[in-house]
């Protein structure tokens, strides 16, 4: 189907923007939840993301059917997140030096996971087979069915998370802890177990993002770093701790990135985003819907 060039490029940018945005959303939600409730930056997030892809890969190699691999991958990533939370994070929660300690601890976890993956799977690029093969073209844009699956799955998950956080008891508890820790304690909300829930959920989401994107792009053991960086940008742009803001921000950043790539040049995408972020941090440090913690001196 031939369409005018301008529309063609627009479509290209829109499609990859929405695709990227969906995945960033899944990753960023986890980060913003951890930040909101634990007041911690989880540097292991990228590793959890890539672990999802690799667990799926490994499970496939063992011969399990494809749809099942999604569940196992998410479970695997969630499990790693659980271990990190229980072994590394919980012991240091009460320490006075917990900010730097948590940075180091999550960084350490990230290294351990990545090098374990490297040892187990080797360093060559891999890819996961798609759930649905094929696609269709509009102009020069290839819209693969798998891509639509990814977008659909991500959107569903994001909506579910939103609902969970706003309607369910535990979701309310997580939001309560983010907004006022002492008050949350006084409501009888168990703090440490809720942290574990947050971490596990966040890890599971990251793993899901990894599996989804792994079926479209290639991945390597160190491939989680850049998506994590983008997720961090999204989290900050959307406002630390705000889930609604994060979802909006994910798609905005995703679209921004793809528009930059299509209209200016692929190598300008990343620098452009970072530049935008720097400008934004200087002008409006709280992000879109920020719950307000970036203080200027």
């Amino acid at each position, binding site marked *: 189907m031939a369409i005018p060039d301008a529309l063609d490029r627009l479509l290209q940018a829109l499609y990859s923007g929405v695709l990227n945005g969906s995945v960033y959303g899944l990753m960023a939600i986890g980060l913003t939840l951890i930040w909101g409730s634990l007041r911690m930056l989880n540097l292991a997030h990228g590793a959890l993301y890539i672990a999802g892809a690799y667990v799926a890969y490994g499970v496939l190699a063992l011969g399990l059917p494809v749809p099942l691999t999604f569940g196992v991958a998410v479970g695997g990533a969630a499990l790693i997140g659980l271990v990190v939370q229980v072994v590394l994070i919980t012991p240091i929660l009460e320490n006075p030096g917990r900010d730097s300690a948590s940075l*180091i601890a999550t960084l350490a976890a990230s*290294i*351990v996971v990545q090098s374990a993956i490297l040892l187990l799977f080797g360093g060559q690029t891999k890819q996961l087979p798609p759930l649905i093969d094929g696609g269709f073209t509009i102009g020069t844009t290839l819209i693969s069915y798998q891509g639509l699956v990814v977008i659909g799955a991500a959107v569903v998950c994001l909506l579910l998370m939103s609902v969970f956080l706003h309607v369910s008891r535990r979701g309310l508890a997580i939001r309560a802890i983010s907004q006022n820790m002492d008050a949350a304690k006084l409501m009888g909300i168990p703090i440490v177990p809720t942290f574990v829930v947050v971490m596990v959920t966040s890890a599971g989401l990251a793993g899901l993002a990894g599996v989804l994107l792994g079926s479209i792009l290639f991945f390597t053991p160190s491939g989680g770093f850049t998506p994590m*960086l983008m997720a961090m940008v999204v989290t900050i742009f959307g406002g630390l701790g705000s889930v609604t803001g994060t979802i909006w921000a994910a798609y905005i950043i995703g679209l921004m990135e793809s528009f930059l790539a299509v209209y200016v040049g692929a190598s300008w995408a990343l*620098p452009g985003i970072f530049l935008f*972020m720097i400008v934004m941090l200087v002008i409006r*440090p709280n992000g879109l819907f920020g719950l307000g*913690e970036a203080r*200027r001196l």
Partner: protein
Amino acid sequence: MIGEDAEAPRPGHVLALPPGMERGTLTRLRPTARPWAETSWLAVGVITVVMLGLPWALTRVDGGNYITHLIITFFVWGIVAQCWNLIMGVSGIYSFGQLALFQVGAFTTGVLSFAVGLNPWVSIWAAPIVAVIAALVIGLPTLRLRGIYVVLLTLAFHELLRNWITTGPQWISGGGYGLVRVPKLGFETVLGPQYEKVFYYYTGLVFFGLATYAIWRILNSPIGLAFTALRDSEDYATSRGVDPFRFKLFLFAFSAFFTGLAGGFSAHYNGSASTSLFDFGVMINLLVMIVLGGWGTFAGPIVGTAILTFLTELLRAFDLYRILALGIAMAVIAVAAPEGLVPLCTRAFHRLFDVFFEPDEPPARETADQPNPETRSTPRDG
């Protein structure tokens, strides 16, 4: 601190700012700012003689040249580790841009000496200067913001620089591997190639000594106290008249200077400025050096670098497992002994041998936990 709501300083963690520190004025240096008065000159003398004579001795030994190489590596990374520790451990600025600044130094002198043709001894001094400029450029927007934003922005800078250097114009990217033909410092003509490393050793020693001394002076000055106060409780320090931003910017630039210098030296010593030094593995290595030795202490990074440099050699066969082991080590330290080896050993040392020393005088005035440094009876362990 990352995300701390503005609240009262945690009791016991706040140092009383020395009189004269308020409003940023400096009065007469207190005894703690003249620690050279307490140093054992004998110890320094012995160490100096040993360090000066070592490379010559090593040329006589089989494989000695390799050990010299290791020590030079130790010099290079020891500088960077100390600089990074100054920012992160001592002042609590969570910057991950140290490696990028190192590369700025390396590539600056590399390009200047190779592509432009400057004498390496001239271009090497451009390295720290450009690094400082880069630090100021990053620091101005970044250092006004709180913890998590600094992490992100410096990581972004690292990534951006890596991207540009790797995929950029040929004169800098060398096809993605970096510069592979950086001119050396011309030592091989002095006494012959077998003594080449000796001179690199001395150059490295001088740089290392300069950096270490400068950092030592800063840590033991009122400025150093201000930095520690900033780390422990920024709100309190601000309320006492310490301007965090200017201090942070100064510190950032200061540590960039020596890091850039180390990068430049490394480029000329190795004869290349490699893009592989952007790898996360290198950053982890560096981080472990600081964390293992003693986060925020003076001797910590030095000890950590020494341990790691020689350990890396021993474990060279197990390279794949090395990074895994480093990760596990870091995790263990973060949970079990976040202060690192130096403070741990110092405390153990004191517990064992305290009976030989006079007891410290009881802590005075506002601070509950920290003993007044002036009354410390044992000489400062570096």
